[in-house]
């Protein structure tokens, strides 16, 4: 019994379009119809480019009919977190300060997707400037979790995760600075992969924290994530922090044998705040991995408890710097008032254009960089960061992967944490340290709570070793049964 087009894996869609079993136009239309039927409830999309998508799909079909091969993602409908700059398509980073901005250039990852034949459906909702773990700080509208519309999808790539989970696209791109791909993937029951820092170009990725940001794929299967990663990864001369290596064939790591694979569980991450149902699903997942041939043991990451403090000094500091360019001079919104001075223009534009979470982090970051405070705050945090990275290096010399829950809880309710910033920040406690150490990490669905909310297993690996992550995740996935989809009633308001 075949699944509807909108729930087919990207790999399968690609094959069907290539073999001309189905046309790219048909696939695209099916997804546009799905979006029209569902997204009103969900709020995953910020901008839908139906015309552009259908036009591109038509070109793909034409190319295939003429016998040429338009790329490994030909005809696959993909959507992009609104933090990725897209020529001719509005890009807002979830903020009012970029309302109406139409970029004159494409991010490198967007160019690569286009070049691989992907059909770009549009831009996805997110926390403003990627600062958040629930998508609630989007200046436009919240995004809801397809599994329970009263709950958050996670963040900051909330739209990227929700859209994939609900079948609005075959795959999406998000960004991850402290967990923003992995955590929403976990809360929405999909696969989310953050590559090694430097693996994927940041050119055209609206910067939040430059030394932490990475672009990565979200998809319903590990194979789909691997395919997307292969297309977007690899050296980019326009990014000075891009690793000088071509994109590996990640798909080759799929379906490998796990015998001999060692997995570490950090004793310092056995935290009291973890939901017992989440903990038990993760334990069960690790038991499955053991059945598949892996072995699990305890490791130690003595400084990992400081990840939150370290992250919340470094990321806001870099963000306060990266967001200084939003000043109403060259693009975006300006708070116009007749006769105002330049200073007033700056302050009102930024005061009105940024939401409270962004302002909070800009303030924090500005403070941490002030002369007189720099040594004690920012510089100190960068040193502790080095210690955390060293801990991971030592642990990953003993084991191949480090495992934990992706998130301490399943999806929480909208509004539940938004008035307590520190509580919100704790959502990222398991994911942050991966970014600090620059390591690749993946979240795979590993069950549900009693209330039917998805739980995610996180695996973290050595630098540039996405292959081992993919190998372990795909084996686990194969042993976990078919992909689960959110209750259709949530999405279409009635019978499927």
């Amino acid at each position, binding site marked *: 019994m075949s699944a509807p087009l909108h729930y087919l894996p990207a790999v399968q869609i690609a094959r069907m379009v290539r073999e001309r079993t189905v046309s790219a136009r048909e696939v695209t239309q099916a997804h546009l119809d799905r979006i029209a039927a569902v997204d009103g409830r969900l709020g995953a999309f910020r901008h839908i480019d139906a015309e552009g998508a259908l036009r591109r799909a038509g070109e793909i079909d034409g190319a295939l009919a003429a016998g040429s091969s338009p790329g490994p993602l030909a005809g696959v409908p993909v959507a992009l977190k609104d933090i990725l700059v897209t020529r001719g398509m509005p890009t807002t980073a979830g903020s009012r300060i970029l309302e109406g901005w139409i970029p*004159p250039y494409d991010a490198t990852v967007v160019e690569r997707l286009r070049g691989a034949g992907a059909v770009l459906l549009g831009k996805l909702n997110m926390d403003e400037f990627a600062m958040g773990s629930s998508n609630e700080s989007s200046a436009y509208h919240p995004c809801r979790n397809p599994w329970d519309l009263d709950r958050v999808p996670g963040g900051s790539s909330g739209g990227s995760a929700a859209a994939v989970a609900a079948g609005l696209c075959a795959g999406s791109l998000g960004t991850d600075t402290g967990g923003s791909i992995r955590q929403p993937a976990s809360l929405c029951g999909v696969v989310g992969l953050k590559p090694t820092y430097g693996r994927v170009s940041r050119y055209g990725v609206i910067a939040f924290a430059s030394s932490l940001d990475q672009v990565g794929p979200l998809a319903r299967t590990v194979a789909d994530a691997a395919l997307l990663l292969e297309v977007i990864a690899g050296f980019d001369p326009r990014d*000075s922090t891009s690793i000088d290596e071509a994109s590996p064939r990640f798909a080759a790591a799929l379906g490998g044998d796990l015998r001999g694979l060692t997995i570490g569980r950090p004793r310092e991450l056995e935290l009291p705040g973890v939901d017992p149902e989440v903990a038990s699903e993760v334990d069960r997942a690790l038991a499955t991995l053991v059945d598949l041939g892996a072995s699990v043991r305890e490791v130690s990451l003595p400084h990992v408890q*400081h990840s939150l403090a370290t992250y919340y000094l470094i990321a806001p500091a870099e963000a306060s710097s990266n967001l200084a360019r939003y000043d109403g001079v*060259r693009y975006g919104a300006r708070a116009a008032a007749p006769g105002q001075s330049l200073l007033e223009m700056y302050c*009102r534009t*930024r005061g009105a254009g940024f939401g409270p979470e962004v302002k909070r982090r800009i*303030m*924090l970051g500005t403070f941490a960089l002030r002369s007189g405070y720099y040594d004690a705050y920012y510089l100190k945090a960068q040193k502790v960061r080095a210690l955390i990275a060293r801990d991971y290096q030592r642990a990953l010399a003993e084991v191949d992967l480090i495992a934990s829950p992706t998130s301490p809880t399943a999806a929480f309710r909208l509004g539940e944490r938004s008035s307590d910033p520190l509580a919100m920040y704790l959502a990222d406690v398991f994911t942050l340290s991966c970014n600090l150490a*620059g390591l690749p990490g993946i979240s795979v669905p590993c069950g549900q709570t009693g209330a039917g909310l998805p739980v995610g297993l996180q695996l973290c690996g050595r630098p540039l070793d996405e292959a081992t992550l993919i190998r372990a995740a795909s084996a686990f996935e194969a042993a976990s049964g078919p992909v689960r989809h959110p209750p259709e009633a949530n999405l279409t308001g009635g019978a499927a």
Partner: protein
Amino acid sequence: MAALTRKDVLEIAHLARLHLEPDEADRLSGELSSILEHMEQLGAIDTEGVEPMTHAVPMRLRLRPDEVEPSLPVEEAVGAAPDRAGDLFQVPHIIRSGTAGSGSGS
């Protein structure tokens, strides 16, 4: 360290060119103080001899050849400006007395 006062908050907001409503400033001084208190724990960690980590994977600067590449067409460069005068960006007057910055090279 002492908590951030409202005055501290307003100073930082000025540095960051953020207009804050009065209630925002009050709220922020509380929030930022409690967040910073949480950061205090870092002070206790021994980082003697540890090099700050500025890049996750060790990297050295790559250089590009001195080759000219096409610029953006002027209309694309200036087209998104909230205010313009022909092909120039237009901004409000820079007031000297007591408020504006000292500016870049003339």
